[in-house]
């Protein structure tokens, strides 16, 4: 686990998709490196991962390895452009028709699509796949995004047939009814969890995935390899470029880099270890094989508004003036840009205007004095015990010490961190981050600073609740055309209370093999391997 945990990379990846829905597109433009429209067909793509997938079941998948495989084995109704965040129809023939005041989505399927076993893809298969998410037995981690669908909650107690708000009207038409307008729902239908599987195949998917995507699973040997081959029934005649994909498992990122330099790998499945970053960027032979793109994530500090001394708004404001963001970035190899607000670039709600307080040590000290802490105070900060957190811990400790706040750092294991930070009155400060699940600011607000998330077990580690913020976000979701204005207003209202202090927006960095053509990072998927080709297919 280097820069971010591997799952997190995916999340980060996921974070980013941007754009879309009709008029107000805030997209990141497709940037395909070395792009020529004529890719080469043939060959086998080689990639390696540190960890096995925990499952192949798309309605459950949330780790790095399975995430990449979801893109290759399954189709969603909508998917992202190769290097960008704009959505485009995939299994659907067009973007959804939204009626009923933003509550009714009518979707027509592409004609002639087939699963890799030759059976046609129907609206009933889609309804089955979506309903599975609401069935508690599936243990889907994303059920929270689907409770907006009419009948999802009720389905949990009686999971038979389809969720009442999900109706196949005929073989190729599906209707989804929401309980309230939710402009972000189209992104939810593009998440890996919304991948389409054949009716009734849920139980087999964990081990033997079957979908309608560009590739199908040929073999899986736990701990060793996943082998994919071209799906003979795939509808798209351009993709995939390669005839198959070999995924080696159990390969550490350090070794992945060695194999990539040797030409044995076309792509590292995990992020480059922090410690190897400089050697890679300074390696002249790798220069042309490096890509960077915005991470669609925000790294930030949380200040627990229910715990002393951070229950005092003046103390929180003092912290917001104590941070030197530029200097922090040095501790993460400059892989990011100083945060100017809460929502990162590429996500709807981002504004280039500065919404955060600048470094001002004098002002921070004066605020502390005013708050009754003329000599500062001691407190505790929690973070994960991996990179880049431990580097940032030390830097923040120094910066806060400069204004008189003595911070004791607790760098702890991920699983413990989640539990402690989500328990009321346990963690005065945490250092953490969020990667967009989809490119709409509501994702950040709802998960991190909403009144609904201000509960034990949630991710609102500041235990902050402000109905003004919630109302702006709800307004944005109901009216996508004006959502940016509403999200900016929400961010301003929230940052005025300083429950969190944004630090920086992350950058994603990738190294790819010299034989790879058409390489591009996708903000949500990280990689869409079916869209890459091998310049010399016979070399692999």
């Amino acid at each position: 686990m280097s820069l971010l945990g591997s799952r997190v990379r995916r999340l980060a990846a996921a974070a980013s998709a941007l754009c879309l829905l009709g008029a107000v597109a805030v997209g990141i433009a497709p940037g395909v490196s070395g792009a020529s429209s004529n890719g080469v067909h043939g060959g086998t793509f080689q990639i390696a991962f540190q960890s096995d997938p925990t499952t192949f079941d798309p309605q459950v998948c949330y780790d790095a390895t399975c995430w990449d495989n979801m893109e290759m084995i399954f189709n969603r109704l909508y998917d992202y452009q190769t290097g960008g965040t704009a959505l485009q129809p995939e299994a659907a023939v067009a973007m959804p028709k939204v009626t009923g005041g933003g509550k009714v989505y009518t979707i027509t399927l592409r004609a002639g699509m087939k699963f890799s076993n030759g059976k046609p893809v129907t609206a009933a298969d889609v309804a089955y796949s979506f309903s599975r998410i609401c069935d508690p037995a599936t243990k889907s981690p994303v059920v929270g995004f689907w409770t907006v669908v009419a009948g999802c909650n009720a389905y949990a107690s009686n999971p038979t047939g389809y969720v009442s708000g999900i109706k196949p009207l005929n073989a190729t038409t599906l209707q989804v009814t929401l309980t309230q307008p939710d402009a972000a729902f189209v992104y939810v239908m593009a998440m890996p969890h919304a991948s389409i599987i054949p009716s009734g195949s849920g139980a087999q998917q964990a081990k033997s995935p079957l979908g309608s995507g560009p590739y199908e699973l040929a073999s899986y040997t736990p701990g060793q390899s996943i082998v994919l081959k071209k799906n003979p029934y795939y509808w798209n005649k351009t993709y995939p470029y390669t005839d198959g994909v070999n995924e080696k498992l159990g390969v550490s990122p350090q070794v992945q880099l060695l194999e990539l330099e040797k030409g044995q790998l076309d792509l590292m499945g995990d992020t480059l270890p922090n410690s190897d970053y400089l050697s890679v960027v300074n390696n002249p032979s790798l220069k042309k094989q490096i890509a960077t793109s915005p991470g669609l994530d925000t790294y930030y500090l949380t200040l627990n508004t229910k715990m002393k001394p951070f229950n005092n708004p003046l103390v929180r404001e003092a912290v917001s003036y104590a941070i030197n963001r530029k200097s922090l970035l040095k501790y993460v190899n400059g892989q990011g840009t100083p945060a100017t607000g809460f929502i990162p670039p590429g996500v709807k709600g981002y504004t280039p205007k500065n919404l955060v307080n600048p470094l001002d040590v004098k002002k921070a000290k004066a605020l502390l004095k005013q708050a009754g802490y003329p000599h500062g105070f001691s407190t505790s900060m929690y973070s994960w015990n991996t990179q880049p957190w431990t580097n940032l811990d030390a830097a923040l400790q120094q910066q806060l010490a400069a204004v008189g706040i003595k911070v004791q750092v607790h760098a702890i294991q991920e699983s413990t961190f989640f539990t402690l930070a989500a328990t009321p009155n346990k963690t005065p400060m945490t250092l953490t981050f969020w990667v967009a699940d989809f490119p709409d600011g509501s994702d950040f607000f709802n998960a991190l600073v909403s009144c609904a998330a201000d509960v034990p077990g949630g991710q609102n580690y500041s235990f902050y609740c402000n109905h003004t913020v919630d109302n702006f976000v709800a307004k944005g979701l109901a009216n996508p055309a004006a959502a940016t204005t509403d999200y900016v207003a929400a961010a301003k209202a929230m940052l005025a209370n300083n429950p969190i202090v944004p630090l920086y927006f992350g950058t994603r960095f990738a190294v790819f093999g010299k034989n790879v053509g058409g390489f591009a990072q996708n903000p949500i998927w990280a990689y869409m391997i079916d869209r890459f080709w091998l310049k010399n297919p016979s070399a692999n």
Partner: protein
Amino acid sequence: MIGWVARRFAQMVLVVFGVVTLAFVFAYLVPANPARMVAGPQASPQAVASIARQLGLDRSVWSQYLSFLGRLLHGNLGVSFVLQGRTVASEIATALPYTAALALGGVLWEIVLGIPVGVIAAYRPRSVIDRVATFGALLGLSAPPFWLGLMLIYFLAYKVSLFPINGVGHPLIWYLILPSFTLGVGGAAFYSRMVRTTVRQVLRSPFIEFARLKGMPERTILGRHVIRHALLPVVTMLGMDLGYFLGGVLIIESIFGIPGVGQLAYASIATIDIPMITGTVMVAAVFMVLMNFIVDVTYTLIDPRVRLRRGR
């Protein structure tokens, strides 16, 4: 003898039961929610709660422990929380052969390098061979396995493509040479020193002198008297090494990408996969007590003075 075996067996079962219970208790003492790890960092509190219910984590620890014991008595190690649809037993069964091959390889290196070098060094004290062996042992003992492993990969697999860089394949032995060497070299260094010391002691014993006086060839003395004596402590430790290695050797397995029990255990701890934690811990405990037992039995074969009986 039969009584002794029965008593030892009962002890072994008790030890394994105790270890597994401790593992179970510790897994629950960690202030972390396994359901959160299953759901992922971005899941909503509702999703986490729903998953906790599905996994039975909303029941009391006692009731979970009792159903765990009930399953265990039926030989059922349970189903992984994290790895979907996979049983603990099948995961361990898949991983164990790799760990076993690696462990045997490691012990083999310990024997093949450690014992001859120790014996030769003892026969030729302060010779060039002895000094080289001393220096080599110092290196072998001080080189951390993660460093040595990476160096071997870099030079012998990456620079000169003598061995595969990573993973397992066919023939398996080819993929295990570097990892098992890395695993065994520290022990080999240690044993060479130990064997050297014991052999030196034995060589100074009156019975060796007697054997020489009666004209027994040096080779027979070595085989019949010296080695037997020198091996006694080595056998104990080799047995314990093997038991320990079979429980999984995480660092070696992860550096070389070997899908063994160590990696399985590590991943399960990181994700608080309780059934997998207890399963892998149990495997480690079983091998440890089993090897202990085998060592005791082997003792009697090497040294007839050691008898297995009550009160030993």
